[in-house]
């Protein structure tokens, strides 16, 4: 009989260099814990995150993807996070269609001063992913088996 493996979600967090990555650092230096399932990728701005990166993560078996940027109006590049907001609204509505539940993706605004918010957001997000369970792996139709 196969022993059921304990579910360990894979969660990718994209953080912009100026606000959210610094927020994550602050969470660290304030010793505010959040689950180890979250792995952070540093990007210069949240608008650097191509929707394809998120699809790629789901293709490779990610259970959740969260994208963190500066608060609207505070972007280091003045307008980057507005693009993020629009692009992700669009992508998330299509993910639903692909069979990836709404809760598996999220955009959050975390400033460099919001270490507490960063850890709260991550705790909530991971809890949500545990609730949703393992994700279906997206297949690439171009690669026929």
């Amino acid at each position, binding site marked *: 009989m196969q022993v059921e493996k304990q579910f360990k979600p*894979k969660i*990718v967090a994209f953080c912009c*260099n100026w606000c959210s*990555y*610094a927020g*994550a*650092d602050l*969470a*660290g*230096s304030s*010793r*505010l*814990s*959040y689950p*180890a399932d979250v*792995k*952070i*990728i*540093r*990007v*210069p*701005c949240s*608008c*650097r*995150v*191509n*929707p*394809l*990166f998120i699809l*790629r*993560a789901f293709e*490779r*078996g*990610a259970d959740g993807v969260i994208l963190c940027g500066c608060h609207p109006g505070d972007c*280091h*590049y*003045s*307008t*980057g996070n507005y*693009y993020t907001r629009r*692009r992700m609204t669009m992508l998330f509505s299509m993910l639903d269609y692909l069979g990836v539940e709404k809760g598996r993706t999220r955009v959050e605004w975390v400033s460099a001063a919001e270490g507490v918010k960063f*850890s709260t957001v991550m705790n909530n997000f991971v809890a949500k992913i545990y609730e949703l369970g393992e994700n279906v792996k997206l297949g690439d139709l171009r690669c026929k088996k």
Partner: protein
Amino acid sequence: MQRIGVFVCWCGSNIAATVDVERVAQVMKNEPGVVFSTDYQYMCSEAGQAIIRNAIAEHKLTGIVVCSCSPRMHEATFRKTAQRAGLNPYMVEIANIREQCSWIHKDKEEGTEKAIVLARAALAKVMLNAPLIAGQSSVTKRALVIGGGIAGIQSALDIADAGYEVDIVEKEPTIGGKMSKLDKTFPTLDCSACILTPKMVDAAQNEKITLYTYSEVEEVKGFVGNFNVKIRRKARYVKEDVCTGCGACMQKCPSKKGLNEFNLGLNKRTAIYIPFAQAIPNVAVIDATQCIKIKNNKCGLCDTVCAAKAIDYNQQDEFIEREYGAIVMATGFNPIKLDKFNEYSYAECPDVITSLELERIMNAAGPTGGKLVKMSNGEHPHDITFIQCVGSRDISGRGKCYCSKICCMYTAKHAMLIRDKYPDVNVHVFYIDVRTPGKNFDEFYRRAVEEYSVDYIKGQVGKVYPEGDHLVVQGVDMLANEQIIHKTDMVVLATAIEPDPTARKIASMLTASIDTNDFITEAHPKLRPVESPTAGIFLSGVCQGPKDIPETVAQAGAAAVKVLGLLSKDKLVTNPCVSQSNELLCNGCSMCQNVCPYGAIGYEDKLINDHGIRETRRVAVVNEALCQGCGACTVTCPSGAMDLKGFTNKQIMAEVDAICK
């Protein structure tokens, strides 16, 4: 094939307590591409850096991964280390296993596993890193100041004092701007001309400053350090270097119907004129629309009386082209047009005036010689009513949504000056809120009320209409909840201010961003308030937002400092992590250009060799001196031609793959 070295830091016990650093180093040693892996107590120490340098030399490493604290802390340190060992500094990647791993986890097993994943992600990225070389560009050691008001003059003086050449372009025949039209300045009530004109003279006499008055910026090309500007010198019909400013021509000129712009059209001037007595340069100018000689080829009196022989009726606009390293925008403001505010009868009644017009009436050099009189009949007024917020804080589309900031203070100033000079005149002020933040500002306003008995009424005015010799103001007193029908002699409107239209024109030439109100956007509202997001463009005065004279002067000085910081460099070193367009993939759609906040993307027609097919295509070209590396264009590009160096699509995808493995 890359040869990567992995260096795991203990950070004393900071990392080592929750992450089994030896195991991380051991696991990483077996990863493909890794030829060397070790751990050490303090990688950032001199000894730790020596380990890295030795390993680079000994194992001929092509890239390194340092598993340590946040890259925001020590990325620069390790890049320098790599550089000292002869490795390109951009071949370094940091795995953040302190702030984002050891400090937030308690379980050692969990921490170690996460650290390994983070190290693998960094390894996956560094495998795809390419050496990057920071670009360099030259700096032309000359600054351009657009606008010759107090903001522009102050910026120019500060730049010139530091020893750099600076040119001022002013569209009017004289520098001085709005401040030269003011009578007194708040809160000290010192005379505006007394403090401004010495500065104007300083600017004219400073050998580092060149004034281009009656000139406009026609075209701007280039980028930070290397702007190419075309300036139109409008025909003055008077030789600027010959005219002595004696004014004999003005006395003889028979055409006296032109509206005196300096006095806001309150009186008339001759066709050949010097805007005001202290004008800089003190040179006459001919208004071609009024000059009888230019219009009908008759007259020519001014030429006859001019002892210096300065008149030249055949003068044409001239163009000059110059190179500049930095540009200061000091384009200033204008009061808004009141044509949408019929309720105040501004157009119909000469006794309804704007505050700026009142400045001229109160000024000793103004149309009335400084005597406060009704413009309709020259009589002395006994009652004056001020109306605040005319067009300010208005979201109905008639006015401006913002607070014009200066009106509360100048209205208090006017009220006080009138009460001081003419104690028989009753002064009323209709206000919504009195906003007086600033040093000695509220005290100033209170003085108007408490010492000069100015009647402040909380409420707005519904309409103003003439009745006989008088004006009637229908307003409301909100505190008494009463409607007021008030007979008065003069009404003064505190008109909202708006940026001068030049700002939009020049901003679009420079692709500097501008807000919905046409104020030029600052690079950061708090931390970079005098710079535009477009590198090399600096902001001074009201073109950035409403402000009074002290603030304008402070900002002008700040802008000058930023200019000096730029001009003092011989070479500009650019951030190498910038966007790059793949010419073979680019289809010239312009979408990247539209999202770029820095105007860093342009288009060129280039001869492309696409797999043997040679053709000319319109392709995107990134200006590396302007690009700040946000990556907005990379995602927008429909053909995937744009990529960001240092954070390429492949690199980020490799990180995603490593994390999801």
